[in-house]
């Protein structure tokens, strides 16, 4: 397994891999790639691993309820992405494509097995290192995940009671 230390040392090699990974991902797609973002199996696996690390203790503790909440949040992330310009949707698709590629996941992310096997601590370490990485592309990717996941979570009225937000005036919001 790639350790966090070796992961942080990657630097230039990582940047090249990031570029190559994005290109490889695009080449692997059909020529007439759809314009709209698709939450495919691989992208969903990334989200299911990243959402709990991003949201932390706001998710329910009960395993079954937690799984339902994560799946629902992933769906709302997809909906938020579908509201972005198509060029941005493609950038987000490329990000998930890159995160799904084995070599990128191992070297850049530090997750050696599949996302489904990633330990929560590994995912947290991945988020923290991209958050502070000297490569701007990785910081941008972290911020994209941050904004998409938090935005989708707190946009949901079901979460408002947990933060003491009463929501808009019922009579006008109906």
């Amino acid at each position: 397994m790639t350790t966090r230390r070796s992961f942080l040392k990657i630097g230039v090699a990582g940047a090249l891999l990031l570029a190559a990974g994005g290109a490889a991902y695009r080449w692997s797609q059909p020529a007439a790639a759809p314009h709209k973002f698709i939450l495919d199996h691989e992208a969903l696996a990334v989200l299911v691993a990243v959402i709990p690390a991003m949201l932390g203790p706001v998710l329910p503790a009960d395993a079954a309820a937690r799984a339902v909440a994560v799946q629902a949040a992933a769906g709302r992330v997809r909906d938020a992405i579908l509201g972005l310009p198509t060029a941005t949707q493609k950038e987000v698709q490329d990000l998930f494509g890159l995160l799904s590629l084995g070599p990128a996941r191992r070297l850049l992310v530090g997750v050696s097995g599949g996302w489904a096997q990633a330990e929560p601590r590994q995912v947290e370490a991945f988020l923290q290192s991209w958050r502070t990485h000297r490569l701007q592309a990785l910081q941008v990717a972290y911020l994209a995940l941050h904004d998409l996941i938090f935005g989708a979570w707190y946009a949901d009225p079901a979460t408002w009671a947990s933060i003491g937000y009463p929501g808009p005036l019922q009579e006008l919001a109906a």
Partner: protein
Amino acid sequence: MSAIPDPIQAGLAAGWRVTDCAQLSSDSTLEADVVIVGSGAGGGVTAEILALSGLRVIIVEEGALKSSKDFKMREAQAYPALYQESAARKTRDKGINILQGRTVGGSTTVNWTSSFRTPDITLAYWNRHFGLKDYTPDALAPWFGMMEQRLHITDWPAPPNENNDLLRRGAARLNIPTALIRRNVNGCWNLGYCGMGCPTNAKQSMLITTIPSALRHGATLLTRARAERLVINGDKAAQLDCVALDAAGLSPTGRRLTLRAKHYVLAGGAINTPALLLRSTAPDPHDLLGKRTFLHPTVISAALFEQRVDGYAGAPQTVYSDHFLHNDRIDGPMGYKLEAPPLHPLLLSTTMAGFGAQHAAMMQQFPHVHALLALLRDGFHADAPGGSVALSAGGAPVLDYPIGDFIWDGARRALLTMAEIQFAAGARTVTPVHEAAPAYSSWAQAKAGINGLPFKLLATRVVSAHVMGGCAMADDERQGVTSGDGRYLGLANVSVHDGSLFPTSIGANPQLSIYGIVARLASALAQELTGKPAARPAAA
């Protein structure tokens, strides 16, 4: 069902000429006296004055026509429906997030109603450095006065909400003067949801004032129509080519519109107007088009208070301080204006740095969160020259806005000021919005901490809601692409009527600057096109 009367639905029922171009099944060619691109502050004011003056007007809007029946005060619906790029428009390096409207009424449909005349010192700078001799406080006063009356811009009688009052109280303890913000509202319910479209039609946005007035006077409104390029023939625009967008506003449907007019007014905002002119390969002999784009780069300071702040409730912006705009020369170290932003869950949670337990702990305190923002006044110093708009391969605008040490110095001083004010107001903790900033528990700790933070791209959260410049006015073509009367140099029948005209940033929320300045430009244009004095709009 809401009992709020909806003037847009009533107008449509009464036969307004409005075409949702997403529904077009064939290409179309239309003619008018004047085509106006954009329905925000600049386009709305222009449309009303020209239509009242008897001119046949077509208004082209990329967004959709939404109205109070659609405004349900939910961020998840409002941002994709009413903002450019779902309220996530960004600069090229993604270092600055930009809030800009994209709907009928433009940003005025979603702004926070703060109304300031253009500061005298800004106009004096324009006189001195850009030769704009007609831009004096006295010369503009009647136009500001007319638009203040038209849009009910008056003192706000209700007390500030706690989020704003904490700015007033904290500043007072430090002997920093504050004042109250005037607002363009009529019968406001003091709800706090201005940023999601006013659900009670109290906000006097273009959506419910000038645009309906223009439509009552025979104007045509095309929605979901994107202005692609002016076809230029010699020194004139011969036609405007537009593409129809789908209902979601994301993709062209394949239907096209050709618009022909005697005159074209561009008012798509300071990113889209320069981009349209760039796509049209408009004359630009001195390489100034799309240059000097200003943002009022904005930094944010969050704090936690013992008492409830309820930053989502009540008029969003009612208190401000210009103290730090005036304690140095306008072209000295960067000055900043202090205000409070409204706090809603989606915008706050995405704005606040960090993740996991740290982020959750802050959100748990949501009703106790207070925030201040500082608008950095760009464009007055050689080291704050603004950004530039260019075109992507697909023709979409891309704004590049580098942030250098001069601006970071302003950001640091602004975060220090805001933390000091928040502690003076009684904050338990203060957290500058920065990836490396913890929650500080005293002013001494914050002062040392903020002075030690690395100020750099992506680490420091920088946002903007005020895009200006890119088609600067000047009396010398080596300094600007438009003249002081808003005419595009080198194109006899093209005017620019939006914030892109400004040769610097304003140093205040810009809506009233656009209303007043454009009212004068549009009145002169109406007189030129009709040979009669322009009609004077009045509040309904």
